[in-house]
């Protein structure tokens, strides 16, 4: 579904992503693991259009999407969440979700004054949907709270909720579990599985919690130093010698690179 072909992204002289190639199967929940600084988030940013790759190509269902801006990719069904949860702090949780589908008819100056009925209908439908999403994610009671006031874990749920406001094709989750307690993490995991089964979302998940990865993801891709090291089930990955080296830093050819 998504094909990443030999992507390189350099920041100055530093090669954050160094010729990564991978393929993401439709309908799968793919896990992306690797030590800190492996280039996972940078690769996410390249795919989601936040960064333009230095070289290489990203295709989605055969269509070249390299370097398209994020809001265009959003309308093609490619969504992502952030490692550190982002929210529109001055708005309520409900308003946060209602912001999501872009290109609403209320967005033009003309319609603001002359298309009021159509906007009202749209807003009503959105409101109902936002409430439904929040109920699903067990944060229904927070609907009217300012998004800047809810807890970190709840913000993560809100991020996930954002992807449910539209019919996404593929969702990239960047460390959904970071700083989230176990119970909430299970809620998030259940939601991901349910969305994958019922709505057919394809997921790519960056996560450091191996239990979480093991429960949800197949296949798992391991990155280190900007390259893709290995791909397979979690058991296969865990047995892979290169991967063990990358995590533990033993026996690397170049000792200076240890700890990268």
């Amino acid at each position, binding site marked *: 579904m998504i094909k990443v072909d030999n992507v390189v992204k350099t920041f100055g002289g530093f090669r954050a992503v160094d010729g990564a190639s991978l393929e993401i199967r439709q309908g799968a929940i793919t896990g992306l693991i690797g030590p800190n600084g492996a280039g996972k988030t940078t690769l996410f940013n390249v795919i989601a259009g936040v960064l333009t790759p230095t070289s290489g190509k990203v295709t989605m269902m055969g269509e070249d999407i390299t370097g398209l801006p994020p809001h265009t990719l*959003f309308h093609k069904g490619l969504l992502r969440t952030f490692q550190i949860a982002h929210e529109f702090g001055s708005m309520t949780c409900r308003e946060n979700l209602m*912001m999501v589908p*872009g290109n609403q008819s209320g*967005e033009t*100056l003309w319609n603001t004054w002359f298309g009021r009925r159509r906007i009202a209908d749209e807003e009503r439908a959105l409101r109902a949907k936002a409430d439904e999403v929040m109920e699903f994610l067990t944060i229904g009671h927070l609907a009217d709270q300012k998004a800047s006031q809810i807890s970190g874990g709840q913000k993560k749920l809100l991020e996930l909720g954002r992807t449910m406001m*539209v019919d996404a094709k593929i969702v990239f989750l960047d460390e959904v579990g970071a700083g989230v307690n176990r119970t909430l993490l299970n809620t998030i995991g259940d939601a991901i599985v349910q969305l994958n089964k019922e709505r057919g979302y394809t997921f790519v998940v960056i996560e450091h919690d191996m239990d979480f990865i093991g429960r949800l993801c197949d296949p798992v891709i391991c990155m280190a130093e900007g390259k893709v090291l290995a791909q397979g089930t979690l058991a296969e990955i865990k047995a892979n010698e290169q991967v063990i080296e990358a995590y533990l830093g033993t026996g690397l050819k170049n000792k200076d690179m240890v700890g990268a």
Partner: protein
Amino acid sequence: MDLLNAFITLANFVIVPAIAYGSQLALGALGVTLIYGILRFSNFAHGDTMAFGTMITILITWLFQSWGLSLGVFPTALLALPFGIAGCALFVLMTDRAVYRFYRVQKAKPVILVIVSMGVMFIMNGVVRFIIGPDDHAFGDGERFIISARTFREMTGLQEGLAIRTSTGITVITAIIVVAILFWFLNKTRTGKSMRAYSDNEDLALLSGINPERVVMVTWIIVAALATVAGTLYGLDKSFKAFTYFQLLLPIFASAIVGGLGSPVGAIAGGFIIAFSEVLVTYAWKKVLVYALPDGIGPDGLAQLLSTDYKFAVSFLILLIVLLFRPTGLFKGKSV
């Protein structure tokens, strides 16, 4: 001692002018604060944007006057205002397309955009002087007073008169209407919410499918409208001179910063704080004091704290004090 006459004098020379001036500053500061909040830079060209919009309004006003078109007791400029807004919006959008967009695509730092806006400021300044000239232009017509000092005296039998000029009345009423529409727009409409979302968190807005170019375009149009309205009201109240509008940039920025950059409510509060302090400090209090104090101890001098030549110093003193004690402004703004 005559407190009533003292109050009337105060109202006539301080309160009414300061309210009018405050409304004009507030409208100007709203434009600055919107650009800062949404496009994330301090727009030094704002004073000259006001001058440009006002210039178009004046030219159209003269055209209407030559046709014999008028609004009766109201100034013809009100009729020309929509055209001024449209012309200013067009010019500002062209500037954005030609200049600012280049830097936006590069994700240039705010500091660079500030310097760029100074370049735009000088160009706009030149364009305005080139078209309408550097001289003073008065373009107000219609009835001059709602209540003149003499009518007021005859009505009340007081010694002092309270004059309310038409331009003052129009300024305050227009400012209230414009601010009400702006707040409704920002808080209730989808476009306004997109703008707030973009201001809150640009990355997230993009990844929620909000088209940044559209947000930027709408912002510029609103800013052009605010600038033109503010400039025209100021011109009606005093007179139009390109250099004066350039100078207005200082109290406008002071207002926006005192209130908290990026906060619309703050911009309005800041506008009135700056206006009142400027007028209060530069007003000659002699007459009020003579009325208010017991006979015989009224001052002989003018009792003016600061010459009007130094009025800009007042804005900056307040600016310094606020920044020292509350760096984000009175209403918590944001810092880029």
